[in-house]
C-alpha cells in the first residue's frame, strides 16, 4: 500500500512539477522581467466583468444543452451513431479561425440562416455581440460537454440499470437514483473545463463580439504585450485570469466530490433503458438539432474547401506531416502527465482538490504569457528556432492536460473506489498494477484523452509564435500564411485537410478506447 502510494505520488509530483514549469514559472519570469506588477485600472475591471460573464453564460449553456444530447446518445442505438459521436467532436478540435468562418457562413449576415429568414420575409438577425460570442462558444464546447457527460452515462454499469428494471423503477426513479448522482459527479468538471476555455478566449470574442465592447482578458493581455509592450500589465492581467480560474476550480471541485456509481461486470447488452415513444421523440429531436447545429458550419467549411485539397502546394503537405508527428509526441506526453495526476486525485478524494487545480493550470495561465515567459527562460540555453519543436510539443501537451485529466478523473475515481482496496490487499503495485488493472479499466477515457490531445496539438497555433522557425511551419501556420497571401481558396483547402487529419487522429485514438461503446 505504502509502496503503491509512494510510486504514484512520485509520478504525480513529477507531472505537477512539469505543469508548473510550463505555466507558473513562465508567468513568474514575465513578472520578474517587468520588475513588478501595476494595480489594475477601471478599464481592466470592465474587461474582467465581460470575460467572466460570457464565460459563465457559455459554460452554463454548453453544459446544460449537452445533457439531453448525451442522454439521447446513451439511450439510442442507430446506424451512424458512432460516426455522429466522432463528428460531434469536430468543432472543439478545429482551429478557431476555421470554426469562426464556418459559423459565419451559417449564422453571419450573408449566411444561410439569414438567407432563409429573408426568403420567408422575416427580418434578419445579427450574430455579432455577446450573443455571437456565446453562440460560438457553445458551438465549440457543446461537443466536449456532450462527450464528457456521455462518458459519465457509459460509466454507469449496465447491471445497475438491470437492477433498477427488476426493482420496477420507472424513468423518474432511474433518474433520481442512477442518473442524477452521475450528473452531479460529472457536470461540475464539464462546466469548469468549458468555463476555463472561454475565460481565455481571444479570436472568437473579437470576431463575433463585434467590437471592443467584447474585450476579454486575453485580448487585453495581447494588447499590453504587443501594442504597449507593458510586460508588467500583461503579467498582472494574467495573474487576474489565473486567480479567477483557481477560484472556479475550487468551487467546482467542492461541488463534484461525490462517489461514482460502483463496480460492474462490463456486461454488454442491457444498457440505458430506451423508454417509450415520447422519450424516443425527445431524443431524436435532441440528436437531430445538435447534429444540425454542429455539422452545418463544418459542412460549409468542407464545401468551400474540398475542391482545393488536391491542388494544395507541397509546402502544405510537408507541414501536415510535421504537424502529425508533433501531435503524436504531444499525445504521449499529455497522457504521461494526465494519468498520474488523475490517479493521485482519485486517491486523495476528499482531501482537497490540489491535484485537480494543478491539472487545470494550463487553462488558467494566458497562452501569450506562457509563450513569452518560456522564451525569456529558454533563450539563453539554445537558439529559439532549435527549441521550437520541443517547446511546441510540451506546451500542446500541457494545453490538452485539463481535458485529458477531466476525461480520466471519473473513471479513475471509480477504479480507486471499486478495485483500489482489492488491488492493495493483493499487493498489486507498480507496473503490474498499471498493466493489469489501471490501463484496461481506463481504456475508454484514455483513448478519448489521447484523441483530444492529438487533435489539440494538430490545431494549435498561438503559444509558440516567438519561437518561430520559418522552415518548419506547422499546418495551421501554413493555413494562416495562405490566408495572409490572399490565397483564401487554398487556405480553405488546407482547412479541410487540417480538419480531416485532426478528426482522423481523434477517431483512431477514441476508437481504440471505446471498442465496446
Amino acid at each position, binding site marked *: 500500500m505504502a509502496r503503491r502510494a509512494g510510486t504514484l505520488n512520485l509520478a504525480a509530483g513529477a507531472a505537477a512539477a512539469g505543469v508548473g514549469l510550463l505555466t507558473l514559472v513562465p508567468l513568474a519570469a514575465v513578472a520578474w522581467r517587468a520588475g513588478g506588477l501595476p494595480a489594475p485600472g477601471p478599464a481592466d475591471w470592465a474587461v474582467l466583468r465581460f470575460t467572466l460573464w460570457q464565460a459563465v453564460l457559455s459554460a452554463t449553456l454548453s453544459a446544460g444543452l449537452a445533457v439531453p444530447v448525451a442522454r439521447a446518445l446513451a439511450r439510442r442505438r442507430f446506424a451512424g451513431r458512432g460516426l455522429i459521436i466522432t463528428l460531434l467532436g469536430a468543432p472543439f478540435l478545429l482551429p478557431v479561425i476555421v470554426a*469562426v468562418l464556418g459559423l459565419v457562413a451559417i449564422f*453571419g449576415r450573408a449566411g444561410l440562416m439569414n438567407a432563409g429568414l429573408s426568403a420567408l420575409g422575416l427580418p434578419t438577425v445579427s450574430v455579432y455581440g455577446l450573443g455571437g460570442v456565446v453562440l460560438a462558444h457553445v458551438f465549440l464546447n457543446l461537443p466536449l460537454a456532450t462527450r464528457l457527460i456521455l462518458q459519465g452515462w457509459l460509466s454507469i454499469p449496465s447491471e445497475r440499470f438491470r437492477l433498477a428494471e427488476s426493482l420496477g423503477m420507472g424513468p423518474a426513479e432511474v433518474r433520481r437514483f442512477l442518473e442524477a448522482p452521475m450528473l452531479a459527479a460529472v457536470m461540475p468538471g464539464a462546466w469548469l473545463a468549458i468555463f476555463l476555455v472561454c475565460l481565455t478566449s481571444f479570436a472568437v470574442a*473579437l470576431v463575433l463580439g463585434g467590437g471592443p*465592447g467584447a474585450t476579454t482578458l486575453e485580448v487585453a493581455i495581447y494588447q499590453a504585450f504587443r*501594442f504597449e509592450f507593458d510586460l508588467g500589465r500583461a503579467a498582472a492581467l494574467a495573474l487576474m485570469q489565473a486567480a479567477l480560474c483557481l477560484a472556479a476550480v475550487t468551487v467546482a471541485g467542492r461541488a463534484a466530490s461525490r462517489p461514482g456509481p460502483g463496480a460492474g461486470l462490463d456486461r454488454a447488452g442491457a444498457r440505458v433503458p430506451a423508454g417509450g415513444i415520447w422519450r424516443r421523440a425527445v431524443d431524436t429531436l435532441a440528436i437531430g438539432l445538435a447534429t444540425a447545429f454542429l455539422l452545418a458550419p463544418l459542412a460549409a467549411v468542407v464545401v468551400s474547401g474540398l475542391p482545393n485539397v488536391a491542388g494544395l502546394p507541397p509546402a502544405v503537405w510537408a507541414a501536415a506531416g510535421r504537424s502529425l508527428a508533433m501531435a503524436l509526441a504531444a499525445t504521449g506526453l499529455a497522457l504521461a502527465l494526465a494519468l498520474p495526476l488523475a490517479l493521485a486525485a482519485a486517491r486523495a478524494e476528499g482531501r482537497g482538490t490540489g491535484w485537480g487545480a494543478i491539472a487545470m493550470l494550463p487553462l488558467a495561465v494566458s497562452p501569450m504569457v506562457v509563450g513569452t515567459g518560456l522564451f525569456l527562460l529558454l533563450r539563453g540555453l539554445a537558439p*529559439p528556432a532549435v527549441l521550437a519543436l520541443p517547446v511546441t510539443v510540451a506546451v500542446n501537451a500541457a494545453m490538452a492536460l485539463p481535458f485529458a485529466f477531466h476525461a480520466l478523473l471519473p473513471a479513475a475515481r471509480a477504479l480507486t473506489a471499486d478495485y483500489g482496496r482489492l488491488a492493495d490487499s493483493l499487493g498489486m503495485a507498480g507496473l503490474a498494477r498499471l498493466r493489469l488493472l489501471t490501463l484496461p479499466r481506463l481504456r475508454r477515457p484514455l483513448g478519448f484523452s489521447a484523441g483530444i490531445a492529438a487533435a489539440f496539438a494538430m490545431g494549435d497555433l498561438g503559444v509558440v509564435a516567438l519561437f*518561430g522557425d520559418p522552415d518548419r*511551419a506547422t499546418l495551421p501556420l501554413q493555413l494562416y*500564411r495562405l490566408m495572409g497571401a490572399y490565397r483564401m481558396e487554398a487556405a480553405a483547402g488546407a482547412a479541410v485537410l487540417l480538419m480531416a487529419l485532426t478528426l482522423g487522429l481523434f477517431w483512431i485514438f477514441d476508437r481504440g478506447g471505446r471498442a465496446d461503446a
Partner: protein
Amino acid sequence: MRPFLIAAGLTLATQAMAQTPVLTVYTYDSFVSDWGPGPAVEAAFEAECGCDLRFVAAGDGAALLARLELEGATTDADVVLGLDTNLTGRAAATGLFAPHGLTPALDLPIGWDDPLFLPFDWGHFAFVYDSTKLADPPGSFAALAASDISILIQDPRSSTPGLGLLMWVKAAEGADAAAMWEALADNIVTVTPGWSEAYGMFLEGEADMVLSYTSSPAYHRIAEGDDTKAYAAFAEGHYLQVEVAGKLAATDAPELADAFLAFMLSDGFQAVIPETNWMFPAVTPAGGLPEGFGDPVPAERTLYLPPEEAAAVRDAALAEWRDALAR
C-alpha cells in the same frame, strides 16, 4: 585513437574556417512564407554576397518589435525588416538600431530622411469592395458613415491595418475623429483580430467593404484574372503605410548588414515585392510595375503622420475608438 582525434580536430577547424558568414534577418511571418518575397530575396542576395542569409520569422510587425524588445542588446538579429512607421518611433527609442548612412533615391509619396530606417515597400490603406455587388461606393468617411454600407475592420490593438485605420481617421478628422468613429459605428459589422479574418469574411460576402490596401485589387486582377475588386477612393486622401528595415547597432556582421540594406533597394529585391508582398516597391524596378498593378494614390492625396506624431496621438486615438465602438 589519437590520430582519429587529430583528424577530427582538423576537420572541425577546416569547417569553421570554410564556414560562410551568416546574416540573420528578423522579419514578419508572411515575408518568409512560400508565397512571400523571402525565398526569392534569399536566393538573389546569397548569389551575390557569398554569405548565408537566415530569416527568422516572428508573427507580424508588432510581434517582431516585441521580440526585439524582449531580447534587447543580446539579440542575434543583424537586420530587422518589416516594421512600419507606426512602430518605428518605439523601435528607435529602444536604442538598438544603428544609422544606415545611405541616401538613396526613393519612389515614395513622401520625403524620407529617417537616419535609422530605410523603406522597402509602401502602400495606402483603403476600403476594398466588389464592384458587382456595390454599385455606388462612398467617396469619403462622411459619405460612408451616412450610408448603410457595411464594413469589416481590424482591431488596432492586434493588427497593423487596424492601427493604420486608427491613424487614418485621426489624420483625416483630427479633433472630430471621435465623432467620426461614433458615426461609423453602425457601419461596422465586426472588428477582427487580423487582416486575414476580415478579408476572408469579406470574400464570403459578410460585408460590402473591407479595410485593406489600394493594391489588393491588383492581386485579384493579376493572380486570379478577376476584375471585380476595386477600392473606394476617399476625397480626404488615404493613409500611407511605409514598411522599413534597420540595422542593429550590436550586429556582428556590420558590412554584411550594410550590403543587405543596399541590396534591399536594388532590383533583385524590389522587383519581387509587387507580386509577393502586393505592395508598391520603394524603388521602382527597371522593368516598371507589373501589368495591371494599377497606379498608386497620388502624393497630394496621401495622409501620413510621422513616427513621433503617430506615437504621440496613438493612445488617445485608441481610447476614442474604444469608447465610440464599445457602445
